[in-house]
């Protein structure tokens, strides 16, 4: 960022009625996103927010930017198409943990391979909010939230570990109720060149009575210490300093993997892993320099000459 942004969070807000439950962690993420966008100074009309379906999926309606509230589990493919169609736009994809790691798991994984320059924010609340509280893929075995008739008999997913294996070049975790640091984290993710995952721990006061605000704050613990701590505060270095060094990459992934399994009494937030490497846009530009020059959506194709193709068939 060269110039400080003249935009304020307010300019990214919409006036419509927000129908999330009172106290929902989604408000924290939304506010953080408003702040991050303002901080980065990208004009609203140069921003496109894609979402899946769920409580989280309603986010675009609450952001003053081009908004695409797509299908359940399909936010990554549609955002990918959108970004490739106009790589001049800032593309942000958001969705729930069911949306991204359940029905969308195949796209979540395959997006890691492309390293297209967009940011994916997952609202991780351990439940399927909008369908009334079934276990989401992040809910761990043995847990039972108030709306489940039986405890979970299958394991929860570790999204950070999966993102590392899938090839994401920016892997981070935030906490919805620490809005300011989340805003900074989101800004950093958006600025990253390549696909960035930010898994955000989000409280759902309506259905998740286990991972509550109080639980995160450690109120049940004898020492009343928050479960959340910041990776960076412990001198953790997520950055691959020599992207050409395969060994450093693997070592940084292994380090991040170990950290990602801290998920009980201590829960790290912050950036787990960063690698600066060529994006899919870079590769496409190398293949056809025209691609780099004008985003496809802005190019004029009305004069295309296909006669050489017919010639080949003569």
């Amino acid at each position, binding site marked *: 960022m060269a110039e400080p942004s003249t935009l304020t969070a307010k300019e990214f807000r919409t006036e419509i009625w927000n129908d999330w439950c009172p106290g929902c962690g989604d408000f924290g993420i939304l506010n953080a996103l408003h702040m991050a966008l303002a901080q980065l100074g990208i*004009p609203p009309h140069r921003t496109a927010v894609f979402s899946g379906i769920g409580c989280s999926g309603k986010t675009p309606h609450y952001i003053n930017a*081009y*908004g*695409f509230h797509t299908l359940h589990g399909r936010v990554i*493919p549609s955002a990918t198409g959108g970004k490739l169609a*106009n790589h001049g736009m800032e593309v942000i994809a958001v969705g729930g943990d069911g949306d991204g790691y359940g029905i969308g798991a195949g796209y979540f994984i395959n997006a890691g391979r492309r390293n297209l320059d967009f940011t994916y924010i997952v609202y991780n609340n351990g439940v399927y909010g909008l369908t009334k509280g079934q276990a989401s893929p992040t809910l761990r075995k043995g847990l039972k939230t108030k709306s489940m008739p039986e405890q979970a008999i299958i394991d929860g997913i570790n999204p950070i570990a999966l993102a590392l294996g899938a090839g994401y070049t920016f892997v981070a975790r935030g906490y919805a109720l620490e809005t300011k640091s989340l805003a900074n984290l989101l800004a950093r993710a958006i600025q990253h060149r390549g696909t960035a995952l930010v898994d955000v721990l989000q409280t759902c006061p309506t259905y998740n009575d286990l991972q509550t605000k109080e639980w995160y704050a450690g109120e049940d613990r004898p020492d009343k210490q928050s479960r959340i701590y910041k990776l960076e505060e412990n001198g953790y270095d997520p950055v691959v300093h020599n992207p050409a060094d395969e060994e450093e990459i693997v070592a940084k992934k292994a380090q991040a993997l170990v950290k990602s399994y801290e998920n009980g009494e201590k829960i790290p937030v912050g950036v787990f892993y960063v690698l600066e490497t060529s994006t899919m846009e870079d590769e496409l530009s190398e293949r056809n320099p025209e691609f780099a020059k004008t985003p496809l959506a802005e190019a004029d194709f009305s004069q295309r000459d296909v006669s*050489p193709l*017919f010639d080949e068939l003569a």
Partner: protein
Amino acid sequence: MASREFSWMIGGPQGSGINLAAETLAKAFSRGGYFVFANIEYHSNIMGKHSFYRVRVADREIRSHLDTTDLLVALDEETLFGDYHHNPEFPTHPGHVHELAAGGGIIFDSQFEKQVKEKLEDRDLRLYPLPYLDLLKEALGKLGRESEFKKFDIMKNTLALGATVAILDYDLDFVSEIIRQTFTGRKAKVAELNLTALETAHDYARKTFGDDFPHRLPARKRRDQILMRGAQAVAIGKLKAGLGFQTYYPISPATDEAVYLEEQQRKYNFVVVQTEDEVSAINMAVGAAHMGVRASTSTAGPGFSLMPEGVGFAAMTESPGPVIFLYQRGGPSTGLPTRSEQADLRFALHPSHGDFPHIVVACGDVVESFYDAFESFNWADRYQLPVIVLLDKFLATSYRTVPRPDASKLKIDRGLIYKPSDPRRDGYLRYAPTETGITPRALPGQEGGIFWATTDEHNPKGHISEGIEHRLAQMEKRMKKLQLAAQEIPSPYKYTLHGPQGADLTIVSWGSTKGPILDALSEMNADKKVNFLQLRLLRPFPVEEIAKILGKAKQLVSIEANFSGQMAGLLREMTGIRIPHLIVKYDGRPFSQNEIAEGVEKVLAGKEEKVVVSHPGG
């Protein structure tokens, strides 16, 4: 006088180069001023299973294949007598010798000579045993590489080609030229090898075989024509339409088109993405279309079975596209992956839950494929909805000589685009109900054009609303666009009545049956008055126009390559008119010219309600 047309067939295991031989021959005749039609049958297999390629050549327009073959090239024994060796319990085909026309010939490996003679002694056939191995060694010997003969078994195909040209008395230079153009650069050595083999076999055949083959084709005047198949026509039509974004997930028979497009990415500025599956393919395309590029995806039945949700997404959000090219193949399920069928019509007409607008058009031939591919993007943009273009394996992969399409008159129409008078004003209503149902769309990135698109029901601004008033207005808005499309789309894109008015019999059909039907008609019409109503626009269905034509028809028969007569059902749903006779084919093979004629004969002769045509074949 020897006939100036013939049907040729080459058969052999997959991987034995029959494609190269057949396509070279087809091109050689096309360049020589002939009309050519060439089509392939093959298994869902990479190496070893039986495949065959037909090349039909004539000095008048042809658009289909025949069931009979004048000259059969057998690269293996199975091509002659079937696969009972491989599949003793459940053989799958009886070989091809039964398809030979009287007076026809067979080029085959001399090692089977005794057997062939025995089995075919009472048939009026010319036998052309070719000592493949000796000729191969001879050819390699000329280049000092005789010892490598085992590596070059694959060149049997070229040997057979040389013999073919000799027997037909065609000009070998056409073939040589094409081989040289096929193998260039690092592959020039391969060209040399093949040319030597070609000539060796050609010489041998001239010397050894009689010159009494009843079909002889002297070179004609060159014509400005091209040899093109449906997949290519579509790809070129799309590029001409300004395609910016193409997705695909590999699947027969759609992949050919996408691979062709992939190869053009350095020449034209657009992107082809091989996705992780078809769900991704359609959703990426919807995302891209919304973002302002012309977007498309291509697939076959199984892939399309994963796209319903995405089609509904596009329709609900009034996305300008994508255009979906659905290459039908033998179904249901995985079915017959490399065979042809027209059984996805009903599914394409109702491809997701709920009522929503989309357009369905079916191309009849390779020329229509080009124009439909082009025009479909205009419709997607004008009416802001997904468009499905139906093709099939037969159309996609069959080569036909056609005049070079005239692209100069084609006009890109991107439909209504929103232009704010004051971009700082905040009043854009992306989904405001209008007279026609169409609301100008903003291009994301544009100032003053911010909108919201949601797959939920919404208010004029694009925000979720479950209000009854908005619901009714939006449903009506969306569905109205179909009415507009029905009014605006020009009639040739809707249907064509081929042949004489007031015929005794009217054939109704759609899609790739057009070629064989027209060919059969041109044979038949001398004594019988038959015409042919070809349906092209299947949704919105031109109810009035079709009802009128059908109402006037004296006798009706429908022809389609599926079990249940899907188009006949649609016709009845739309017009109430019941087609009393169905000619159907559901063996996964395309209709030949003869089969159409045969079906029609049966209908004319008897009262059969449902005539199933099918012939044993490879």
